[in-house]
Structure formats: C-alpha cells, structure tokens
C-alpha cells in the first residue's frame, strides 16, 4: 500500500488526461504508472479491509521458531554475500559462502569444506570466465596485485 502510494505521488503530475494538446494521445508519461499504482493501492485497501473484517484468524508469520530460523539462516548470509561482492569479488565470496553452508548447515568435515570452497569458485571461473567470457568482479586484493582473483 505504501509502495503504491509513493508511486502515485511520484507520478501524479501526468495522472490526468491532458486536454491542452501538449501530450501525444492526451496522456503524459505519468499516466500509466499513476493508474497502475492506483490499481495496486485500491486493491491493497480491499485486501486490508477484507483481512480486518474477516472472522478467520490469519496464519502466524512463521509456523514455529525453527521455520523462521531456517529462512534467516539463508537470508542473512545471502544479503551479506551480495553486499560483500563489491569488496571481496565473486570468487572470494563464493568460496566463503560455500564453506559457511558446508560447515554450519551440513556439519561436514574440514576437508570437504575446503574441497567445496575451492571447487565452487574454480567451477564458476571455468564456466563463466573461460566458457562464457563473462568477467566477474574481483576482490580489492586483486586490484592491489596481492591475489589473482
């Protein structure tokens, strides 16, 4: 609802049909986003009102603590990994990410953790940089000439 309201405010200038003849077809750039947002806003109000008047109680946000934790265990590392790519590059991040999951979730022995941490970046390098010729971001250590990735 908030998102739709913000979009409506942002595109309010072109919301109405222009009768002055300055806009092609009588509608400006803001017409389409405004009415899309208005559609969204109107329905959000209906959904909210229905939920409020409904006698049925909605399900809880999470079934139990374990379910919430399971999602958080994926979301938190994913967000940190995505944010770290700018400094650490894809290769370091993918190695750390695989190692984290292998040790933390999978409880693998260190030798397997190491194998996955090395195997994944090598696989990515072969597939993307060699195979598809896509240059992936490298770490700040690469820029300083301290690491080859």
């Amino acid at each position: 609802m908030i998102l739709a309201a913000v979009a409506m405010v942002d595109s309010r200038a072109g919301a109405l049909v222009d009768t002055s003849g300055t806009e092609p077809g009588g509608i400006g750039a803001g017409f389409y986003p405004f009415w899309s947002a208005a559609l969204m806003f109107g329905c959000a109000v209906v959904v909210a009102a229905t939920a409020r008047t409904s006698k049925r109680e909605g399900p809880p946000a999470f079934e139990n603590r374990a379910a919430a934790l399971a999602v958080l265990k994926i979301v938190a590392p994913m967000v940190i990994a995505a944010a770290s790519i700018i400094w650490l590059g894809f290769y370091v991040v993918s190695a750390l990410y695989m190692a984290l999951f292998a040790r933390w979730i999978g409880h693998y022995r260190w030798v397997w953790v190491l194998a996955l941490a090395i195997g994944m970046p090598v696989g990515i390098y072969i597939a993307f940089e060699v195979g598809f010729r896509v240059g992936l971001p490298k770490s700040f250590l690469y820029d300083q000439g301290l690491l080859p990735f």
Partner: protein
Amino acid sequence: MDALTSFFNVFGDLGGGFATALQPFNILMLFVGVVLGLVVGVLPGLGGTSAVAILLPITVIIARTDPTSAVILLAGVYWGALFGGVITSILFNIPGEPWSVVLLFDGFPLAKRRGKPGVALASSFMASFVGAFLATIMFTFFARALADAALSFGFPELFAVFVMSFATLIGLGAESPAKAVMMIGFGLLLASVGFDTLTGAPRLTFGQTALLSGISFVPVTIGLFGIGEILASAEESGIGFVERLSARVGLADIIETFGELRKRIWLVVSTALIGFWFGTLPGHGATAGSFLGYGLARQWSKNKEDFGKGEISGIMAPQAAADSAAVGSLVPMIALGVPGSPTSAVIMAGLFIWGLTPGPLLFTEHHDFVWGLIASIYLGHLLTFVICLAGVPLLALIMRIPYAILTPFIILISIIGAYSLNNSMTDVFITVVFGLVGYWLRKTKYPLAPLVVAIVLGDSTEKTLRQSLIASGGSPLIFFGSPLSSLLMILAFVLLSLPLIRAVRNRGRRGMAEVAENETVGTAID
C-alpha cells in the same frame, strides 16, 4: 484452396524446423535442457520456472550465435521438469513440482499400497508423452493460423488482447481477485520504471541514475522464482521424514501400462485436448491443467471411489492435461506475444533480451527460430520419455544431494546470472530484494503469475494503449472501433465480472441456506 496450400506448407516448414533442431549443437542444448529440467523437476526445492529464470542470462551468450539454440535449451528445461516432478511425487510422496502435486492422490498409492511403482511411473510418462505429442500437433497447425490472423491486428486490437489476458488471470483461477489485480498493478508499475519511451521523461527513478534504464525483468524473475522458491522451501524443509520407494521401469511394466493406456485412450486424448485449450489461456499452465485433468477423470469415471487409492486414470489424465497445457501455453506466446503460463512468461522475457519480439511477425521474420522450436518440442518430449523410462533409479538418486550444498549453489548461480546479464551490481541487488519479495508473496498467498505476466507485458500494454490513443486523438472509443477489439473488450469485461458474479451467487446460496435453516428451526418450534 489457400487453406489447403497453407496446410501442406506446414509440413515443409516443419521439415525445415527438424533440420534446424537436429543440428548437433541444438541437439546438445536440448539434451542439456532436458537433463537440467529433470534434475530440477526431481528436486522439490526448485521448480522448472525458477530454473528457466536462472538460466536466462546464460542463454544471452548462447543466443549471440543462434537464438534457436537458446530457446531449445529453455524449452528443454520446461519439458524435463514436467516429467521430473513425477518421479518425486510417485516414489517419495513429495511433489517435485507444483504440477505434480495431483499425482500424490493416486501415483503414490499405486506405487506403495498396490506395489506397482514401475506401472505408476510408466503410466505417467506415457500419458505425458501422448498428451504432449497431441498438443504439439495442435501447436504445429494452430499457431501459424493464429499468427496469420494476428498479423492484421492494429494497436487497439493488441491492447484488447493484453487486457483480455489480464482479465483471464483475474476472472479464471485467481483465488483472490483483489490480490491478482494488485499483483498486475505492481507488475505494470515495475515495467514503467525508467525513461518513458515516448516523451523521454524519467519515471519512478527517485533520482537514481541506475534506475533510468528501467528494472530489467530478468533479475526480477530470477529473484521471484529462483531465490523466492529456495527461501519458501527452506521454511518447509523441516518436515522431516521422507518415505522412499525404489523402482525401475521394466519391460513388463511398459507392456502392462500400454494395455492400461489402450483402455483409457479416449480419456487421455480428451484431457490432452482440453488441457491444450486451457494452456493457451494466459496464466493457466501445467499446474492448473493437471488439476483440471484430474477433476475431469474423476467426473467421467464410473468408479469414482477408486480415486485416491491408486487409480491409473488419476495418473494418466492429469499428466496428459498438464503436459498438453504446458505446450499450449507457448502458442499465444509465439503467435500473439502473450504468455500462457509463468514459465512461458519467463521464456518470453528471454526472447526480448535476445532481441526478438514475440508475436505474429516471428513466423515471417524468424521463420527458422519458430519452426526449430516447434520441431524441438517433438524431439524434446521423445528424449525426455526415453531418458525417464531408462533412468528412473539414477534420477531418484538426485534427491540425495544435500541441501547444504544445493542451496548455496543455487543462490550463487542466481546472483552470478543476474550480474552477468549487464555486468551490473544493481541487478544483483534487485535479484536479492525480489528474492525476499517473492518469498513473502508466496507466504502471504499472493499469486506470482499475474505479477510476472504484467512485468513482461507492461511495456507492450503501455505502448499499444498510447499508440491507440494517439491515433484516435485521445478517444478511448477506439477500443470499440473494430468488431474484434470490441469482442475482446466485452470478453474481458465478462471475465472481470466473473469473481463478482461468483461472490454474489455464493452470498445468495449462504442466505438461502440460512433462511432454510431458520424455517426448519421455526417449524420445529411450532
């Protein structure tokens, strides 16, 4: 005479299509696609739509050489996933894909209670193959005619087609019409971010230069489907005990199933044809088709009480309808530029990023592409059928891949895929954000199909709306200016009214029931 000529021309076109699809690289892409599809189909945490979305950036590189190879790869994933989900449903009692949920009703009981896992699997594979084969024949002859008719469409007719597509999503099948409309609004809103193509004015960018070029639908779909699904399945993975059956499909199973198929051939053919028609409607892909097929089989059966206990009709009918609907969902995408299912919407997004415009002109401007795709559908299903019959034990092993490896692998591939599209970290952040959005929408039961269809069709809808209004000098009556656009707009209106009619009818029934109840109580008191 013309109709006869174009009928025979189809055979020539299809021959050319087979020549394209049978090129060694295209065969390789088909094989890779089918195997990947089978793998993701077997895995409950990842769906065919997600896999197609994750692979989109890679197909950009393949499409530089030939877009036909790219579309063959993506379509192969779709066909593989359709078959793969079956194995998990029948042997593990867990749906590998949304469209194989219905197989839990009779597939697992036939495999476990009646001890016939081989027959259960073979029934499903054979029905899928027959359904898909019939649907592909329909595709071959129907799509060209539809595209030819669509060539005469102007902007108002095209806009009316888009409006009807959205109306179908709302009127048919949406659990909550308000939520479906809200998702359509959200999708259209996302599609309008960035420079306005007509006036050049920036829209909804909030001063961010990164948003000036708009929000690409590829990172959005990777997030919504790839990461969103992983998060949703992470929440459910604490279910724990998984029952496993081991099976292989032997010659005796195939012979027995063939006999069962002969007994039910009309059921399979009818559900396949209805499934195909259903698939051509926007938003109704394999999942809706499978439930429709099951419902019809039960409705038509003389032994309704056998359903839920391992009835073979309860496996064959939904499978034939699901595969047929999946093939059908590609017809409007190719012929009209309107996706028939969420997976075909993602494939359509691929066509846009490869520089192709889905719609009737594809048949004339990219003749080899269209016919190569059609031929690959025949080959793809044949290949999947053979791999499935021969490789069930091997495919069942995929379920043993630990989630501690699979989850980070899928997330990393999603992130790298999003980045490699434009070498942009903004796309990575969009993927992550929409992964969270997709997860939350799934949790709160907001439909994703209207959202993804609106994102993909948003630009075209706006363009046709504004071009029509420019042509009419701003008069909306142009949408009722031709018989076709009037008919489509009226149909859209009828479809939009359906939820309202249903609500009034339900309220009426409830009211009648209450009155009847009160009268009974009153009589009892008297």
